[in-house]
């Protein structure tokens, strides 16, 4: 089963990457408002039970893929 993990800086925390990209892009695209930079990680697991698989990926995200202190994440099931 395939999952996507979307990781972004936690709301309220400084996003240095977003800030720098936003500043440059704004000069070239006047309609731009904000930019936030994060990660998209695709994970495949050998688990037939969708609930179990989802929980497993959530745990991976919590423990390794994201830093829960500074980042927020969302797990999404993907089409294989």
């Amino acid at each position, binding site marked *: 089963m395939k999952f996507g993990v979307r990781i972004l800086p936690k709301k309220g925390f*400084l996003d240095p990457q977003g800030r720098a990209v936003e500043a440059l892009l704004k000069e070239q695209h006047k309609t731009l408002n904000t930019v936030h930079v994060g990660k998209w990680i695709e994970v495949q697991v050998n688990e037939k039970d969708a609930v179990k698989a989802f929980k497993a990926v959530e745990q991976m995200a919590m423990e390794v893929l994201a830093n829960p202190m*500074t980042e927020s994440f969302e797990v999404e099931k993907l089409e294989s």
Partner: protein
Amino acid sequence: MEAQLKKYRISSAELDLIRAQLGRDPEGVEWALYSALWSEHCSYKSSRRHLKKFAGTLKAGSQGGENAGLIDLGKDEKVIFKMESHNHPSFIEPFHGAATGVGGILRDIFTMGARPIALADFLCFGDQPTDKMKSLYKGVVKGISHYGNCVGVPTTQGITNFHPAYQKNILVNAMAVGLLEKGQPMISSKPLKKKSLIVYVGSKTGRDGVHGAAMASESFGQDLTSKKPNIQIGDPYFEKLLIEACLSVAKENLIECMQDMGAAGLTSSSFEMAAQGQIGFDINLDLVPQREADMEPEEILLSESQERMLLLCDETNLTGVQKHFAKYGLEAVKIGDTDPSRTDVKLMWHGKILTRMEPKHLVDNAPMYDRPYERKANAVQSEKKPAPWPHPALREWIYRQYDQRVGTRTVRTASQSSAFMILPSGRTLGVALGCDPWLTNEDARTGAFDAFMRPFLNLTIKGATPKGLTDCMNFGNPEKPFVMAQFVDSVETFTELGKLLSVPVVSGNVSFYNETEGENIPPTPAVGIIGLAETTSLPFDELKSASKQVYLVKMPLEKLIEQKENLPEITDSLRNWVTENKPASAKLLSRRTWRESLISLCSERSLILEKSWEKQLDFPTDLYSIVFSVKDEASANSLKAWGQKTGFAVELLGTAAPGSQLRVQTQDILAFKDWRSAGRKSLEAWGL
């Protein structure tokens, strides 16, 4: 009321003091002001009484009392430096904690108009490579590397200690050194007695670290997750822009004074400036640039968002200041005015006055405790076994992640015991660190003596004259008399040696409450000494091709302590021997066995020891053992003469030869490459 006191971390005795000052209870934002400024971290309430003793070490050409200390080296070269701790945040989030520690110490330097030219780190970890400790070790180094490299300041020196007592409470101290450009006067944080604009520059204010200063002043309990504050995120790229903008307005003489917003952010910088200048401040909190919507005044006051400065300028210079900052994409916003006709600070929110407070209540008259201290007889039996200083591979793993040469001032890197940076005059500035918990844990006084003397000697044996000292006093809970005694002993030792050896203590930091589950860290007064050498031709630690005869000088620690009054003469004459005889190498040996300490000299040359050494190789090196490679008979004789005069043993250790082995006559003892491979094991144990 109790809940209020707990929330703002104010004791009931302190509440009484506040009531005496104000004639009433604190109201509204005043709670936040007292909470921040009366925290240990900001007020130094447990340490101030004793830190005043350092003033006795100051002399002409040195200056304390500002954000960082200043030493005038002559030839229009002034150096500004300081060390600071970021222990608690680094334990919680090592990468960001260490990174923002670097950011913070850099701001203390460039807020005075000096360009940062070098960084150094002092780290203490537990010695058990548990998963937690491994992640702390890797995270801290990565954080320092990330911030220092990006901001463009080389981290050219460091000490890393591994000791069981830090397993639950690591230490991360960062030191920065800056240079005032020729003709650039130091920028003070003291306002002039005139009407000026209060200008906020740098990053927007968010909710980072609200209540952070109070957090840093507390010990850790079992439940670490509850100490999930908003972690401060630093941006070294932004700081680089801030450095250039601040230095350019300083250079153009557009500003009157400047202070960085560090612990307790806007609160500490504004109240401390107002207290220093004894001048009224009118601040409109709603004008502060905000990153988040709907921020409350209290949040704005307590925010620890990084990369922000507060400066004062004349109203005719505001446009100029804004132009310079705009060049770097930074904001410079007027948030208030000063008023020389009064002395209180008025905080306003959309025209409404939140409070009028005399800064002297919060700053000058912050509690200054006279905590009881009582030395505890140490139960620890110290056998003469080698202090388990780690394999140098662990240290090398660290400094290889730090850019050593950005700025092209680096003459000697972190691979050496002292770093050296070239100055515009062609002279070199040395940086050496000290403090060994294996000694301080046995006896605070002796440990403090060593914390001062090891870096002092490290600079001396390279031919540099130590010129100034900064310290980071890391201790446990000051409410415990034995901890307070350790602190007082360390302060008094540095004061005594500083006076004796003409090394003023010009800046520093105190980190108390390094206590976890009732266990206190050993006294850890970290020291950073800067020194001046007249040349770039400095001895290396290791033997070089010019090395021929190798001599060992033994300066027993107990003897140095006994003969304190002779230290100036002893060390001056040793330094003179070095500058006159130019040894190719000079090294104060590490605290391992002789075998392990001597092999590190053999990266480029073999050292062939005299036969008598065979039996001694597994014994620990004596404190202090110094190895010089001497280039000729005359130098050897004058070193021996020095030994005779001062009463220290000077003996022939061996000779240098082509190769890279430690040998006793013809017998190989250890090859440098095998010693390097042994380092692999240490690295593997740490998951590196």
